[in-house]
């Protein structure tokens, strides 16, 4: 099994289905496609209607789909997730927008004790295909509670799937695969990347999801890491906001003669540790970089798994670069707090010199 996701080249004669989109635009287009595909898909959240969301990710959807499918909810996150659960029991697939990372916690109980467990508690009789979109991570100079990376706080809980796109293409594909998935999915959107542009082929995921086994195929693909850059010396693992950073670091390191492989995890639960282990077995050196605090973060799980599965291939311990064990500091500090190009390169150096 390969860790890369194959994108068959669209045949030259077909009309082009490739377009340039920002990540926000790609999610918007993906939501629209999902709503067109399935009338049971609803959007729920605070200010997602007329305003189009504080990041404008749902821009235009209220106008086109109306109050019934794009619902401005009361200001209560637990209420949003809880009512979405009830609606899912009648077949509705709600895509919830949590306004900012730091405001997901009022819904934590509904997410971890209810949403995550209902399928299990009902011996599979109830499925809750709910997607929770969370603009997350920092770098935009925001005030408190608007720059956090809480993904590890959900990954420990069985029953949830967790993904995070790093490119417009993945944003477009993953949002639709998440909506089609019968399991609840937490969809972490790197808000600092919302305005990054990229090519998006809109045909492939449509074809996949329109096929008979679309749900399964989409869900399986969602769970796979992507090799964003091949390399032989060091494996650099990232997801969401740090993928671009990792690629930059790889460029710089290349100038110093270090050939860095960059893996974009895409999925945190399940964690595609297999893809990382395979790479680690070749490079012998792994660095993982995320914005969340290092301590008890996703990097810890990755480090533990890679060490368990590739121990004798490793030339050095898996190193972690991430936020510190402090609350997210004031915006003037965020570029010291967040993993930077220098800190990533420093870790790459250390893993080589260990």
């Amino acid at each position, binding site marked *: 099994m390969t860790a890369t996701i194959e994108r068959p080249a669209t045949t030259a004669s077909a009309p082009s289905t490739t377009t340039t989109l920002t990540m926000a635009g790609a999610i918007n287009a993906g939501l629209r496609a999902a709503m067109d595909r399935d009338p049971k898909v609803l959007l729920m959240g605070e200010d997602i209607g007329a305003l189009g969301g504080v990041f404008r990710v749902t821009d235009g959807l209220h106008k086109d789909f109306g109050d*019934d499918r794009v619902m401005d*909810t*009361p200001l*209560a996150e*637990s*209420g949003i*997730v*809880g*009512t*979405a*659960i*009830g*609606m*899912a*029991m*009648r*077949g*509705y697939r709600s895509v919830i927008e949590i306004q900012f990372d730091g405001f997901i916690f*009022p819904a934590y*109980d*509904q997410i971890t*004790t*209810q949403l995550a*467990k*209902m*399928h*299990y*508690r*009902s*011996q*599979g*009789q*109830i*499925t809750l295909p709910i997607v929770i979109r969370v603009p997350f991570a920092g770098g935009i100079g925001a005030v408190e509670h608007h720059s956090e990376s809480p993904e590890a706080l959900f990954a420990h809980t*069985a*029953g949830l*799937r967790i993904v995070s796109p790093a490119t417009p293409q993945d944003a477009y594909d993953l949002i639709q695969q998440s909506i089609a*998935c*019968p*399991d609840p999915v937490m969809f972490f959107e790197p808000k600092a990347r919302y305005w990054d542009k990229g090519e998006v082929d809109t045909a492939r995921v449509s074809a996949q999801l329109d096929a008979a086994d679309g*749900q*399964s195929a989409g*869900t*399986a693909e969602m*769970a796979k890491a992507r090799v964003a850059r091949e390399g032989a010396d060091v494996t650099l693992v990232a997801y969401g906001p740090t993928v671009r950073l990792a690629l930059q670091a790889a460029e710089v390191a290349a100038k110093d003669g270090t050939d860095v492989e960059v893996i974009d995890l895409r999925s945190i*639960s*399940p*964690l*595609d540790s*297999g893809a990382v282990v395979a790479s680690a077995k070749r490079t012998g050196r792994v660095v993982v970089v995320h914005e969340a605090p290092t301590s008890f973060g996703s990097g810890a799980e990755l480090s533990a798994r890679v060490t368990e599965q590739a121990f004798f291939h490793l030339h050095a311990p898996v190193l972690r670069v991430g936020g510190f064990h402090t609350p997210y500091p004031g915006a003037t500090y965020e570029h010291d707090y967040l993993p930077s190009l220098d800190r990533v390169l420093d870790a790459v150096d250390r893993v080589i010199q260990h």
Partner: protein
Amino acid sequence: MDVGGPLSEEGLVQLLTPAGERIGNEQFDPFAAHLSAHDLRAFWRDMTVLRSWDLEATSLQRQGELGLWVQSLGQEAAQIGSGHALREPDFVFPSYREHGVALTRDVDLVEILRIFRGLQHGAWNPADHGFHLYSLVIGTHALHATGYAMALDRDGLVASGDPDKDGAVVAYFGDGATSQGDVSEAMVFAAVNNAPVVFFVQNNQFAISEPATRQSRVPIADRGKGFGIPSVRVDGNDVIACHAVTRWALEHARSGQGPVLIEAFTYRMGAHTTSDDPTRYRSKAQDEHWRERDPIARLDAHLTRSGELDEQFRAQVAAECKALGERTRTTVRGWTKPPTTTMFDHVYALPHATVEAERAWFERYESSFADVEATR
């Protein structure tokens, strides 16, 4: 105790006095008018069967056959009365004590005990019964009920023009649950969406050891009004009143008039669960006072007075109770644990690599013992 507080008996709708006398009520009589003697006997039968089975479950717990048991003792009228107001398109979100409502929704009572024997967390298919799984995290399901009601509305099953198709939702929870933020949020969502949901609070006066005065200083029914939800207080030990009030509320909801809150004022005659020791926090006198207001006795008195409850019917129900008791004992004792690896089933609807890897590891690990045993 505060006068007018959550333990006051003011303003309770009552159609049957504690002595079993039927009294009139302009607003709610129309919702009890359809009840024949046959119906009332059926209520009596359900309440009687429920209680006898409940005591059976308690004794199974005492014998170590169940890990825990949660009695519905004393709340039979609230549950059976309201449950029988439900129709097929309706849907119920219970807490963990609503065995009586389960009975009215054709859930096999015996199956409920799977949960308390630690076999599984849910023991019936909610869709088959219009009766959701029990919820143990207090208050969470009030939101699920509201969402379900919003979906009924979206599906055109409210005020559809064909009353037989119309449905509504009932969320059952306790006096303690009203303090949880989720319950208030459910009322917010229900009100602004005009959702066809009935919040049915069984105020059994206690949240484990805490009297309802720790949750509110006014009657629980008042809570609804603050959200713009009409509310009723009903005598929860009066099965006819509970039935009528719930019928009214369901029609209100089904016909598109939105949510209702019902407070059924009753008493938890037993312990909170078999792990509880109520002697630590309430008096014998209090128990005695309420034993005299037993909801079954009340209906019994009414039916006896009107000559509608003959010995033959009593005997028939007694036999039913006995048979159910026997079936309960035999079935429960006969349950065996399914293969251990079922604990890995249904974590996700589609395969998840972590679960699959752990399941595979576990199977290898288990079979390594089998190998050892085989070579012995």
